């Protein structure tokens, strides 16, 4: 074979063998098929679902308002929670023991308190002080020592007015989420090879710049999947805010149930909205993960759309194969 360099050897004949039979797979498929049929049968025949009534109410004004509140609350709580988490995580990794100790205490405290207790607490902060002022710490005491009266304050907020409903709910969720996100971000930062920080320092980059430009973008690969999890979890946790009077999706559905005395259709409405939001968030997560995968794999995985396009082409032109790099190559 090696002696003959002018003509290629003929390709070997492909193996045609009898495939192994898998009766277990067939049995499993039949069992699952029957269960699915039974489920669909229940959905169609059981009158309690009241599909027409359900669809009519899915887009009714109170339900839509509730769904919007749920979405806004989730997005805001996650944005602020991630920001807080990054700050606490960086503090936790500080060489200063006071700073890292404070970050540790924060995580310890807010992970220990159940979210529902935290929400009740935030809704009652108005009871702690009537007004919340922004000003100089211990101003009254200091003015007293100086023999003066009065204070050094420039912004007063009524405690009972700000700590209620949406703001209180958001505050509780952000404080709690910040603690969980801090641990996720810390894990991400620590997953980055210390050689990266060394290389950046050797090039004369400052600590802050190294963190922002070199470490965090690489940590993102580790941070994104659990953050997606947290976001989806937050979508559902936000329903806890209904206990302090926030009219979000669950609360709006409950209210409708009390109005119409029809429970199942409204629980289906709420479930469908949660399903829809989760689907949208999962798609978003996929693309964010893909963005931060740059350089970590030799080639980015194709998007579902690209996969679809390629499938189409391979149906039409059988003789072409696609290399992972996405370039066409004719089969020999």
């Amino acid at each position, binding site marked *: 074979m090696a002696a003959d360099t002018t003509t290629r050897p003929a390709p070997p004949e492909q193996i045609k063998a009898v495939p192994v039979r898998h009766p277990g797979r067939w049995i499993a498929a039949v069992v699952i098929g029957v269960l699915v049929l039974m489920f669909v049968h229940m959905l169609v025949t059981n009158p309690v679902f009241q599909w027409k009534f359900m669809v009519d109410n899915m887009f009714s004004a109170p339900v839509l308002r509730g769904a919007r509140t749920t979405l806004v609350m989730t997005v805001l709580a996650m944005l602020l929670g991630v920001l807080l988490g990054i700050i606490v995580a960086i503090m936790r990794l500080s060489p200063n023991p006071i700073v890292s100790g404070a970050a540790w205490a924060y995580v310890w405290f807010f992970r220990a308190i159940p979210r529902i207790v935290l929400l009740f607490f935030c809704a009652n902060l108005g009871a702690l002080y009537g007004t919340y002022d922004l000003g100089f710490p211990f101003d009254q005491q200091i003015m007293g020592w100086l023999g003066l009266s009065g204070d050094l304050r420039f912004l007063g907020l009524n405690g009972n007015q700000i700590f209620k409903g949406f703001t209180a709910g958001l505050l509780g969720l952000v404080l709690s989420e910040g603690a969980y996100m801090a641990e996720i971000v810390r894990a991400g930062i620590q997953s980055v*090879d210390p*050689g*990266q920080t*060394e*290389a*950046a*320092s*050797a*090039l*004369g*980059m*400052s*600590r802050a*710049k190294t963190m922002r*430009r*070199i470490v965090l*973008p*690489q940590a993102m690969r580790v941070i994104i999947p659990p953050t997606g999890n947290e976001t989806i979890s937050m979508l559902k946790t936000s329903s806890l805010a209904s206990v302090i009077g926030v009219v979000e999706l669950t609360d709006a559905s409950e209210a409708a149930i009390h109005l119409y005395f029809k429970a199942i259709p409204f629980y289906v409405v709420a479930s469908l909205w949660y399903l829809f939001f989760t689907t949208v968030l999962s798609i978003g997560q996929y693309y964010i993960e893909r963005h*931060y995968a*740059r*350089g*970590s*794999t*030799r080639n980015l995985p194709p998007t579902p759309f690209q996969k679809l396009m390629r499938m189409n082409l391979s149906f039409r032109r059988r003789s072409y194969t696609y290399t992972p790099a996405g370039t066409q190559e004719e089969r020999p």
Partner: protein
Amino acid sequence: MTEDKVPDGFSIRSADRPAVEIEEVYKSFGRVDVLQGVSMTVREGEVACLIGPSGSGKSTLLRCVNHLEKIDAGRISVNGRLVGYHERNYRLHEMHDRDVARQRRSIGMVFQRFNLFPHKTALENIMEAPVQVLGTNRAQALGEAKALLAQVGLSDKAGNYPSQLSGGQQQRVAIARALAMKPSLMLFDEPTSALDPELVGDVLAVMRTLAESGMTMIVVTHEMAFARDVGDTVAFMDGGVIVEHGDARQVITDPQHARTQAFLAKVR
């Protein structure tokens, strides 16, 4: 016992000005004494190779030169300026991180494991520090980065991520990245130890060209042929001290100290 003095009659290319002065440096990690009184001088344009068994302190010494490791005693200066400390009224003051970073700009470093930024392309790796640290405008940095890539023979790999490059290519990008800061001194920490044998040659060729252009270099290496042919001086380290230090060809081909002889006999 230790032969610290550099003998006369060296083939040193440029002026006799010292680029790096290391005086009686001690360093320990916990209870492990890694450097136990190391002194050496590297002149401008000199290629100094550090050889010796693993654990002898060569890499630690190199990392002390750009203050990636703090020394416990002694002093190190680069281009006449103390590394990591200010000296005022005969007292040492620790340098602020910002000033350490400023000092490191003129000291390039190449690592055994390359340490390229995996989320940036070869070109972006090279442009990162000039743009972010020196404030060079992007167009100029891009031009310089392309020229450096051409210099290390990788013009066609500009858009590749490190994971799409072989070890030898990655190390050449890493050298280009260090050169982009226009350093006056280059530190190489076993630059070919993580490479397949067939890729070592390309990296050594780039380093040889750099040496011929007059760059001051300190190279920790196990490549004895490189040390002999490209190095001006060779220091053999063992147990945290410099055992033998002298003209590269002489130390490698005709070592005087028994420990150097034993080491070189094993490496060959």
